[in-house]
């Protein structure tokens, strides 16, 4: 009988200790689950341009993860973003709705600007600086090329220009050999069927 008691007590005590350790560990080593919305949002280019039909990248990510939107609506992200989202969601890739254009940036023709601040309010990434009745200007390094500032401008003094190519950002193209192209194409088609 005493033996049974000892066994039960010691096991019980052990279970209690283990339970406490586990409870503490759960609190201390708690890992925030990475929800789908954030994962998708991380794949998007964050231009906040609204070309997908949603007011920004996060809302689109929410729609995609909720199954409300297709994976092929992000225009500036292009083929690569679409494939990445499709892979993540485990769905079939789809053709893009519109062809991505070359990267652009907005430019304010300052002598025509009347300082109305409407473009500043429209810019989703705060890339335009200025104050009422002062010239506004676009911070080239921050502009995502979303074109949202074009529409509100009452005097049409904002142009979209080609983003200047920097020599520092130039990168080597694939070698110009048949095998290079073949190997590359094979990967592309492979990815297409993934």
């Amino acid at each position, binding site marked *: 009988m005493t033996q049974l008691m000892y066994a039960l007590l010691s096991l019980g005590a052990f279970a209690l200790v283990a339970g406490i350790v586990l409870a503490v560990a759960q609190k201390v080593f708690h890992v925030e689950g990475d929800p789908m919305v954030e994962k998708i949002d991380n794949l998007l280019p964050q231009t906040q341009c609204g070309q997908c039909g949603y007011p920004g990248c996060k809302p689109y990510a929410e729609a995609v993860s909720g199954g409300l939107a297709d994976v092929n609506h992000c225009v500036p992200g292009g083929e690569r973003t679409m494939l990445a989202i499709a892979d993540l969601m485990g769905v079939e890739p789809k053709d893009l709705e519109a062809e991505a254009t070359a990267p652009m940036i907005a430019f304010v023709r300052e002598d025509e600007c009347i300082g109305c601040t409407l473009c500043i309010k429209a810019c989703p990434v705060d890339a335009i600086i200025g104050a009422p009745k002062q010239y506004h200007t676009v911070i080239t390094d*921050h502009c995502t090329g979303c074109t949202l500032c074009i529409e509100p401008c009452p005097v049409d003094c904002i142009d979209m220009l080609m983003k200047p190519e920097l020599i520092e950002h130039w990168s080597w193209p694939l070698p110009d050999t048949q095998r290079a192209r073949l190997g590359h194409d094979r990967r592309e088609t492979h990815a297409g069927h993934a």
Partner: protein
Amino acid sequence: MPAMLRKLAQRLGILQHSFAGGVHPEMYKVTAAQPVEVAAIAPIHILPMKQHIGEACTPLVTVGDRVLRGQKIAKSEGYLSVPVHAPTSGRVVRIEEYAIPHPSGMGLPCIFIESDGDDESDTTLEPLTNWRELNPAMLRERARMCGLAGLGGAVFPTFIKLVQDKRFPIETVILNGIECEPWLTNDHRLMLEKPHDILTGMAIIMHMVGAKSGIIAIEDNKPDAAESMRRALAEATDMQGVHVVVLPTRYPQGSEKQLIYSLTGKEVEAGRLPMHIGVLCQNVGTSKALFEAVVQARPLTERLVTVSGDAVENPATLSVRLGTPVRSLFASRGLDDLTGLHLLHGGPMMGERLNSADVPVVKSTTGLLAMRTETMMLAHTEEQPCIRCGHCSEACPVHLVPNLLADACRSDQFDRAENYQLFDCIECGSCSYVCPANIPLVHYFRYGKGQIAQTRREQAFAEASRKRSEARDRRIEAEKTEKAARRSRVRRDHAPAKPVEAAEPEYNDANDATQEKS
């Protein structure tokens, strides 16, 4: 006797360390026996605003200004940068974008100086002949001010390396006189003609970093250079800890980490610098330039350039002013018509193809080679399938597996490429050189590195945009709340003085419906 013992030990492989892999390309050092010639001063000099690794400079002069040789014409922006100086006296005629020696064929803002033929020097800088008594920090500032960047071809700003760090004291200074690229003979000629200048430069470096010992490394295909340096060393009175080491010729021995291993047997790990193992490496040309900057108060305005290649009848090692048009240099060696020739900036192993000869000589121009197509060293016939011979892995000095890396890069599997340590590749070209299937391996690696860098840039930009967008959302939200709070305050204060029937309704943020009801 000790020399003989050392030799015996080296023969037996007891003393000698040796980096992995490597190749033995044909050397073609056709200009090795010719003294350095001084190139004529060109009528127009073109000075790109960035000739080093790091941040670009901004012009200090405007069109029409007269400048003197050695005058600072562009100031460095940021820490990792060195200024640009006028290579001769003359007038600034233009400041505009112009092509630089770069595989993209793209340009950078350049200052154009029309030389007036006087070649008058700026004498505002004081010679520091008493450098031995001077604070290293002051000499370091001199190295920066004079625009020094590594003249072996990497053009890393020199002053950054010339620093005393208590955590990583420099014990050994290595002067790199290996010059393992075929065709090039700058360092070879310099060691023959200016050994004392090189040694003084080395003494200044050792004084600056507080090093006790020094090694001058030379390959055994340049015995005359080794002899010249030894003689100069014997004449010098204050270079006790320094000796000349002759290494067996093998490419890429001149690469910093490979050289350090050959000399010391110590490996500089990936992502770490030579200073972490107490070593500092400088090219002999940089050492001489430092001597000129400190003792003669002359900023970097000229460098040695080997103009050679099988299409150049009259090749030479030239002392060239920076900014000299490449076309005029070829013309001065009797090569006027460049059509159909392959032009290389640097050596044939690591150099990059020039799209045009209308580019200036810059601080990184070690050599200018003109090759006939059929005899070009790294002729690329059409790429053949890999036959898994493994020659590339044997040749790789950093223990990579080039054929797998190339496969990964070719098919855009960049995660895989990074797992194979793509970024440890030093692009020495040994693998491409030995590949019997003519696979342009290094080209694939450059492609892969570029694509990965591009993706990282895009991710960083997206992340920054997201942060700004979120900050904006927060701000708008805060403004709304504030406005609503203000409105409700105003309503409360100016409410008509009639008895309140029930509890005052609580105003919700900016909820119009609630506001209308109240």
